């Protein structure tokens, strides 16, 4: 489907979720939205060299991550999955440290958080998810891998190889493509032949679903079903969350060069946060007091993370050498001495 025209499915209301869950999703989305705004501000203030905003994709990220089993599953993100990290309980100061360029992969513990290090290679982490999932199957465990990637990444050879491999091995992995309409300056028409990433799944013999990516409940339900299927031995599947990159590609980007503000406005009408709020209200699952409290508490949390990452100490120069090998080499020790004498 051409970028900008929201998919038909977006008109249908998402399936109803338990009130408690709906409220949790909303609160997490709100925290993500507020923290995202803080991050953009930190970049403007020069605290972050650059930042990649996920604004508009909160429902796709929170909805998909909330469906994961935090004890068993493992997420493989790109560089834009801040709300996934938040949903999975990753140390957000450590996560944001990646955007402050304190450490490329972030300063959180990826193994303990079951959320891989931030990965800047488009398509690169997708085969990792398949390998991790195969590892679960080989070990007779029941965890699933969730592989996050974008519409642009779907053009990379690694993504194809990973999907085919997952199909052949029956690996318990869920491929979550956030199709936000744009890969930097290139819209879907110039990126995804055929127009649908979900449609690729059939070619690998796995289920592929396109869902309204701005409806957290719809995403939660689709990813939940895919996880259930993978967990019960049904193999991989693909969920394409149709959403929109409401912000520029990064704080250094200039959308005026390549996209029509009208498109942004049309998608603004489908902003996942007001929608979630409206749904909660319509269902009578939340009252004014809830929204007031949520606003306050989420803002406090966003500010806590903002202050934490701003205050985080820079890693010492010696960290250059700290994690290159687990079994140190004499040559690197020698270079460390050179650094100590001439730079450190």
């Amino acid at each position, binding site marked *: 489907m051409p970028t900008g025209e929201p998919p038909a499915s977006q008109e249908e209301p998402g399936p109803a979720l338990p009130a408690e869950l709906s409220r949790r999703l909303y609160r997490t989305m709100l925290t993500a939205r507020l923290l995202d705004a803080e991050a953009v501000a930190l970049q403007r203030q020069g605290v972050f060299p*650059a930042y990649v905003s996920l604004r508009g994709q909160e429902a796709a990220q929170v909805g998909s991550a909330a469906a994961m089993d935090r004890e068993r599953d493992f997420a493989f993100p790109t560089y834009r999955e801040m709300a996934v990290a938040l949903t999975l309980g990753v140390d957000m100061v450590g996560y944001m440290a990646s955007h402050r360029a304190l450490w490329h992969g972030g300063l959180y513990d990826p193994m303990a958080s079951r959320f891989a290090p931030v990965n800047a290679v488009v398509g690169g982490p997708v085969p990792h998810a398949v390998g991790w999932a195969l590892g679960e199957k080989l070990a007779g465990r029941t965890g699933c891998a969730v592989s996050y990637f974008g519409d642009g990444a779907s053009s990379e050879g690694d993504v194809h190889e990973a999907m085919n491999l997952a199909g052949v091995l029956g690996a318990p992995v869920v491929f979550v493509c956030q199709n936000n309409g744009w890969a930097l300056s*290139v819209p879907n028409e110039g990126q995804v032949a055929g127009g649908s990433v979900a449609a690729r799944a059939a070619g690998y013999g796995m289920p592929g679903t396109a869902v309204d990516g701005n409806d957290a409940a719809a995403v939660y339900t689709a990813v939940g079903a895919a996880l259930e299927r993978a967990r019960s031995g049904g193999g991989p599947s693909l969920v394409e969350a149709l959403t929109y990159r409401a912000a520029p590609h990064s*704080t250094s980007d200039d959308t005026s060069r390549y996209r029509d503000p009208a498109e942004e406005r049309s998608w603004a009408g489908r902003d996942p946060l007001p929608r979630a709020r409206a749904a909660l209200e319509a269902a009578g699952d939340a009252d004014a007091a809830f929204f007031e409290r949520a606003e306050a508490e989420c803002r406090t949390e966003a500010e806590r993370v903002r202050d934490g990452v701003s205050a985080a100490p*820079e890693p010492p120069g010696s960290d*250059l050498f700290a994690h*290159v090998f687990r079994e140190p080499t004499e040559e690197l020790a020698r270079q460390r001495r050179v650094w100590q004498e001439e*730079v450190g």
Partner: protein
Amino acid sequence: MSPTATGTAGGAAEAPAPAATMREALNRALDEALTEDPATLVFGEDVGRLGGVFRVTDGLQRRHGEHRVFDTPLSEAAIAGMAVGLAMNGWRPVPELQFDGFAYPALDQIVNQIARMNYRSRGTAPMPVTVRVPSFGGIQAPEHHGESLEAVFAHVPGLKVAAPSDAADAYRLLLQSVRSDDPVVFMEPKARYWDRVDSPAPSAPDGDLPVGASRVVRRGRHATLVAWGAMVHRCLQAAEFAAEDGVELEVLDLRWLKPLDSAGLAESVRRTRRAVVVHEAPLTAGLGGEVSALITEGAFSRLAAPVQRVAGFDVPYPAGPLEPQYLPTVDRILFAVQRTLGA
């Protein structure tokens, strides 16, 4: 400076004024190449409508049309691979790989296809491809946006490799590369994109320099500093400092990393008897080893000290605050000079 900082580029296709930035100079070179040869094509990720994340291709699509300057999907291997087919069909492709670290997915097509097709076809299949790769570090960019792959490219039979150090030379080198009927990997020093300073003293009217020619950008007699890309400027800074202590350093800008100017290296070091090679890439198996070997082979009897190497450390290219700790500093260059003089 961020990897997608915005900016503007010149329009006209004449040689850039000395005060043009390297981005403007490169933009004009591409504009001229597109103008002079209708077979020239510019394509890659975000090079069309956006004009490139560094604006090096800014305005080219508007001026030359969507058929000759176009965006591709996010597929580095196919970008390099389609260049092979386009070249075999009479075109002169100038693909861009958006960043150094993302040249790896295209490496199989570059090494096993682009670099070999002329050989494989016994000279019948033309391969006038210039692969532009914004390269090297120094701009506090995300991971994989500060890599230096020159040692990899220079090792590949059938490839030529260029790396300019200033705006004026970038213009000349890029035009020379695109006009070449051999495949060239063109490594653009991101850290110099916004720079207007040209090298003080080109040894020759650079326009006449053949493929493979280096140039002495500062004359000196006590030791030779060898560098390319952004490190040339750093060596010139080091030479300034050294001059204050009466140490006269010669600075040689290699410009071409394949073929390498072994004669130029030997000539300079036979005079100065001492050499320091400086690069951003990790030390081990970096191009500094090759340069050191060439100098030693070409000037052994005159060498007063072993060639010194000042390079990045054997660690993954680090994030922001550690970047200045990783890259060769003026101090490290001067320490190395001291070691050669001490000997």
